């Protein structure tokens, strides 16, 4: 293994596949990643109606193992990881002592003394360092596994039908937010039923050297069912429609989980101390400073990250993410607004606008998510 050159973006084990497919590549969080292969709108729609195949190898994978691993994570994170049964996973966060969000995470409990933490690419260094400090004193070991894994996601209503025949275990036995060791196309992987698209789907933690084999097997098996490779552009509009927050947009060090409407991930009732407890206990009691809302654009000009939200002509918030929604056909956005706006603007439905590059474009509040799949979850 070579040490990454900080001047050059890191490449995933699937770099050659993307090149063959003619992907448009982009640098994202220090990695060279596929932005789109052809039309990002078509990729988005394929995930909604059939399935998409994603390379998410930029995500950080951090292993925490040892007799003290569960207690260490209860202290390091805001969730109660010791209460998660082996084979299950949790969406959780790691916060600073002041309650600000350092990252949002999915933590898979692989065994009683073994956890796999998936961090955002841009934050994996911060998360790794924070875990290293916070685990000290517990009998547990923290290691960065990012370079060893390719993370391949297959997402969409056809995903289970495509993956099933290639997998060594019945997919019906893997519930949403569960994982299981399995072979796929003959290679040993960790198979998880998680995703970031609002659809049913799976994430395959694949040894780097098996990544091309597994990707090709899935691509070949799924082509007839409408599976297409999908890039980061489609991933972003899919997660936005599904109302899922993104670090650097809805989440960040100046935001607590309560600000983001995700206070449910903070387990104040868990035994023992944890980093951020005092600040988060106070935040749980305090009136919210801001409220995360969904906006539907009233014109074709798109509210984007950083654009001011206006209420009766006055600045009353800021857009955190926005895009033209392929599913709804209108611009959608998430925004932090003053609490009074979130309650009052819903009644009248007027007076709300977004300053889109100097011109106020009408907008209205809508409940999140923008899109909810109709079929039931396993």
């Amino acid at each position, binding site marked *: 293994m070579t040490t990454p050159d900080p001047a050059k973006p890191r490449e995933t084990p699937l770099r050659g596949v993307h090149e063959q497919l003619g992907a448009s590549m982009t640098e994202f969080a220090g990695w060279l990643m596929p932005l*789109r292969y052809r*039309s*990002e*709108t078509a990729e988005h729609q394929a995930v909604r109606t059939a399935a998409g195949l994603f390379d998410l190898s930029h995500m950080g994978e951090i292993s925490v193992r040892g007799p003290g691993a569960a207690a260490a994570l209860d202290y390091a994170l805001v969730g109660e990881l010791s209460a998660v049964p082996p084979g299950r996973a949790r969406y959780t966060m790691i916060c600073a002592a002041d309650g600000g969000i350092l990252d949002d995470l999915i933590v898979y409990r692989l065994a009683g003394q073994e956890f796999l933490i998936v961090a955002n690419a841009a934050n994996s260094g911060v998360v790794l360092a924070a875990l290293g400090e916070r685990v000290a004193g517990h009998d547990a070991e923290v290691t960065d596994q990012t370079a060893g894994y390719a993370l391949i996601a297959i997402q969409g209503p056809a995903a289970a039908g495509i993956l099933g025949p290639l997998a060594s275990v019945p997919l019906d036995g893997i519930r949403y937010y569960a994982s299981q060791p399995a072979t796929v196309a003959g290679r040993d992987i960790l198979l998880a039923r998680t995703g970031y698209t609002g659809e049913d789907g799976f994430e395959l933690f694949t040894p780097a050297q098996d990544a091309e084999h597994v990707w090709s097997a899935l691509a070949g098996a799924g082509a007839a069912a409408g599976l297409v490779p999908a890039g980061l*552009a489609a991933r972003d509009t899919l997660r936005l429609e599904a109302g899922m927050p993104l670090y650097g947009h809805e989440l960040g060090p100046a935001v607590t989980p309560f600000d983001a409407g995700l206070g449910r991930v903070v387990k104040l009732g868990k035994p023992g101390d944890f980093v951020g407890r005092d600040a988060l206990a106070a935040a749980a009691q305090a009136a919210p400073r801001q409220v995360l809302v969904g906006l539907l654009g009233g014109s*074709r*000009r*798109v509210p*984007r990250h950083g654009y001011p939200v206006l209420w009766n002509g006055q600045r009353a918030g800021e857009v955190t993410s926005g895009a*033209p929604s392929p599913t709804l056909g209108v611009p959608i956005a998430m925004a932090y607004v003053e609490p009074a706006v979130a309650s009052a603007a819903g009644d009248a439905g007027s007076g709300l606008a977004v300053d889109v590059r100097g011109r106020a474009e009408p907008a209205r509040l809508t409940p999140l998510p923008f899109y909810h799949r109709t079929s039931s979850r396993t």
Partner: protein
Amino acid sequence: MSIPENLMYTAEHEWVAIDGGVASVGITDFAQSALGDVVYVSVPAAGADVTAGEPCGEVESTKSVSDIYSPVDGEVIESNPEIDDDPGLVNTDPYGAGWLVRIRLADDAEPAGLLSAEEYTALTKEAE
């Protein structure tokens, strides 16, 4: 990446075809490829005066929004009536059905500062 020999270009990635004192304008294949799927195009209505080098419209794609700069001085005489309903024409046929506006040149002199296909090709190579 298609860069037709018979067109003129700007550093802002517009193409220009001048015929009989009227400039047809669109965005280049390079530009549409960089933008991704175009979802909305705003261009000035017929009768609007435009100035070379000044923003006169915008192109919204999934990921970003970009200004359109007028490549010439003149008066808009027509905007593409198909683009409003089908902005994807900018992606599928940037030099043909995806044209944006026609501008009557303010004077008969050849507009200054436009790039040849060769010069524009060099510019896109630098950008890559």
